[in-house]
């Protein structure tokens, strides 16, 4: 069948790494908490690409099952995280991480 | 499809792609026109149910009304609200229309007319439909107006809630089908000899209600009704952008009708698909010959009515309708004597379109019969009635399947028992909700 060539796993690893690095930069450098959460979702997606690539190269579905669990966890974490952001916003009217400093001395 | 031989002029490397691309072009070209005429049909049916005539001026019996509407919408001024986010304002109707049209890629319109038979075809269509929410949410937000944002958020909340219920209703039919590929689902209905609506009627009901809410149709059309919130997320859109949203809504209606037809109403199978008795002396099955006879009867009725019309143009149109019915009957009858592929293709396409039209007529009928739900009533119905009912239905059907496989009971017996159990749970849910509602009201009233 045309297009059946298997691409070397290195490319998927590098793509996964690129997305992971961008996600890490997003979490560490942005002030807005919502964008930090979205960068975390990006990191989880990078991990999923990695898992799927190796699942394909070993010919098993274990990687895909693990990826499903990662997606499930991402959903749970996003829900709770956004609930926290909403609750905080109702109290303090801000979503910037720098301004969430009430526990500092 | 393997019976159709490709001309040798087409190189082999692109041969698998020619037919799907052709079907894709046909769908994208025909759909806007079809959506326009479904709008006209809706206005005529609404008029009929309200004892009036509907559009009659533009063209004979208003048949050119969609063309006039399209020309008007294309020529309207393109207004963008002040301070609106231009990129999102431009992209939002695009997302709606793209997702609505993309879902047709996995929809089978008959045994010979499907762009791609995916392994996960049903889930693909559900996934693409769930992407259509972004068209609404981004459109409402980008309009920079209170009505739009509120309408968009309400509409998105409604879609997400009823998507879950509709999906669970579908899964109860999937249990019987055993596969996610649309073609194999219809094949399973052929193998079991009956449409799934007779095995899981409650699943069909749940999907019916869920699909009405999915497409923002009455009685769940709060987000876009004219007497509420102006027009919801579509308030600030005018002209061509609005017509894109409109096209997306009607294309979505056809998609959900197609899913319901494939899953519950047997797809392109005729009623009693395995009843093979033939007309004496021929190789034609009785049930295959029936549609042609029915259309001939309708044509005869049209020709009998034609001279009784008051105006000459109406006589002409009635005669034309009769002629169309005769042509359809001839096509259906003629294909009976053609090679198998042609016969299956023509009859399959006819039955599929007939069932889709029947489902759409049910949509229209329900729209003009029931009053609109208030938003909190809508959400309560979705979360506190439909989703628990869908879960109970799913468990009941699963138990019925296992029991019929392990203990050897007849599947009909187990599915009827499952249906009765689910019905009793439904009655209990509805009554307990009502008691809760009256309790809240009396508590507030004190």
């Amino acid at each position, binding site marked *: 069948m045309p297009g059946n060539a298997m691409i070397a796993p290195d490319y998927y690893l590098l793509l996964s790494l690129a997305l992971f690095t961008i996600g890490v930069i997003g979490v560490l450098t942005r002030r807005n908490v919502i964008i930090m959460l979205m960068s975390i979702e990006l990191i989880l997606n990078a991990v999923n690409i990695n898992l799927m690539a190796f699942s394909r190269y070993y010919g098993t579905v*274990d990687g895909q099952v693990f990826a499903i669990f990662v*997606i499930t966890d991402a959903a749970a974490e996003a829900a709770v995280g956004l609930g926290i952001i909403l609750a905080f916003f109702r109290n303090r009217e801000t979503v910037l991480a720098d301004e969430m400093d009430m526990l500092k001395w | 499809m393997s019976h159709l031989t490709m001309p040798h002029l087409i190189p082999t490397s692109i041969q698998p792609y020619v037919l799907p691309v052709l079907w894709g072009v046909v769908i994208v070209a025909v759909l806007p026109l079809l959506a326009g005429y479904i709008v006209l049909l809706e206005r005529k049916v609404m008029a009929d149910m309200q004892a009036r005539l509907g559009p009659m001026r533009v063209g004979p019996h208003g048949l050119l009304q969609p063309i006039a509407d399209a020309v008007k919408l294309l020529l309207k001024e393109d207004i963008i609200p002040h301070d609106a986010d231009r990129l999102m304002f431009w992209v939002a109707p695009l997302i709606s229309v793209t997702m609505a049209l993309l879902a047709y890629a996995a929809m089978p319109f008959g045994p010979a007319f499907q762009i791609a038979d995916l392994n996960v075809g049903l889930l693909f269509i559900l996934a693409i439909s769930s992407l259509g929410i972004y068209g609404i949410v981004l459109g409402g937000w980008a309009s920079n107006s209170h009505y739009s944002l509120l309408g968009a958020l309400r509409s998105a909340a409604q879609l997400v809630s009823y998507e879950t219920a509709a999906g669970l209703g579908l899964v109860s039919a999937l249990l019987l089908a055993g596969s996610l590929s649309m073609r194999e689902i219809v094949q399973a209905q052929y193998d079991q000899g009956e449409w799934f609506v007779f095995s899981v009627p409650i699943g069909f009901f749940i999907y019916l209600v869920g699909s009405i809410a999915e497409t923002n149709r009455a009685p769940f059309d709060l987000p876009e009704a004219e007497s509420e919130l102006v027009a919801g997320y579509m308030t600030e859109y005018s002209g061509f952008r609005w017509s894109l949203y409109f096209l997306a809504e009607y294309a979505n209606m056809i998609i959900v009708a197609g899913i319901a037809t494939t899953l519950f109403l047997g797809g392109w199978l005729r009623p009693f698909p395995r009843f093979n008795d033939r007309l004496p002396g021929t190789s034609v099955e009785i049930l295959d010959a029936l549609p042609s006879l029915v259309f001939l009867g309708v044509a005869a009725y049209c020709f009998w009515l034609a001279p009784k019309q008051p105006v000459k143009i109406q006589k002409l149109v009635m005669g034309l309708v009769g002629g169309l019915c005769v042509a359809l009957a001839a096509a259906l009858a003629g294909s009976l004597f053609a090679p198998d592929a042609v016969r299956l293709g023509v009859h399959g396409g006819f039955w599929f379109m007939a069932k889709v039209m029947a489902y759409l007529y049910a949509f229209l009928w329900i729209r003009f019969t029931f009053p609109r739900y208030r938003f909190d009533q809508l959400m309560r119905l979705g979360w506190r009635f439909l989703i628990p009912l869908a879960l109970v239905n799913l468990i009941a059907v699963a138990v019925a399947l296992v029991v019929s496989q392990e203990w050897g009971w007849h599947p009909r017996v187990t599915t009827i028992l499952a249906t009765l159990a689910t019905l009793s749970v439904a009655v209990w849910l509805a009554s307990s909700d009502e008691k809760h509602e009256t309790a809240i009201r009396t508590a507030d009233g004190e």
Partner: protein
Amino acid sequence: MALSYILFAFFATVAVVSAILMVTRRNIVHSAVSLITTLLATAGIFLQLRGEFLFVVQIILYVGGIMVLFVFVIMLVNLDISLRSVQFNRQKWVAGVLALVLGAQVVFAVWLGSGTLRLPPRHLAVMPARNTEAVGQALFSQYILPFEIASVLLLVAMIGAVVMAKRRV
């Protein structure tokens, strides 16, 4: 060029470009839409890796569920002030350099190990033809315990989210 390479190149480019757009946009809604594009490109990569079930699951759950949640919350906490304030915090240069160093380390490791991966021979590494059935089988037989734990996790998250977002506890 084989179709696989073209598809991979297309989806990979879209994913990386959208990811970069996501972390650099000033407008949060544009950021969210860029993340949606990244997730769709990732779903395309899954499809290219013959993972059809995960392709649709990614779209239904991630794009059609989680991102809708994000967009809802963004619209509820939308502040004009956050559009005009400084977008990046004080440690941006140090963080950027550290992340790039981390990335370079992993690139080095991949380059070192490239070609030495002991994969099963090509004719054995064939994915099961019916992907959804295979995933379902594995999920309900071998991985049934994580499945149940995941369902409890989802229940906990549901309760947590409802409690956090209520107006009066």
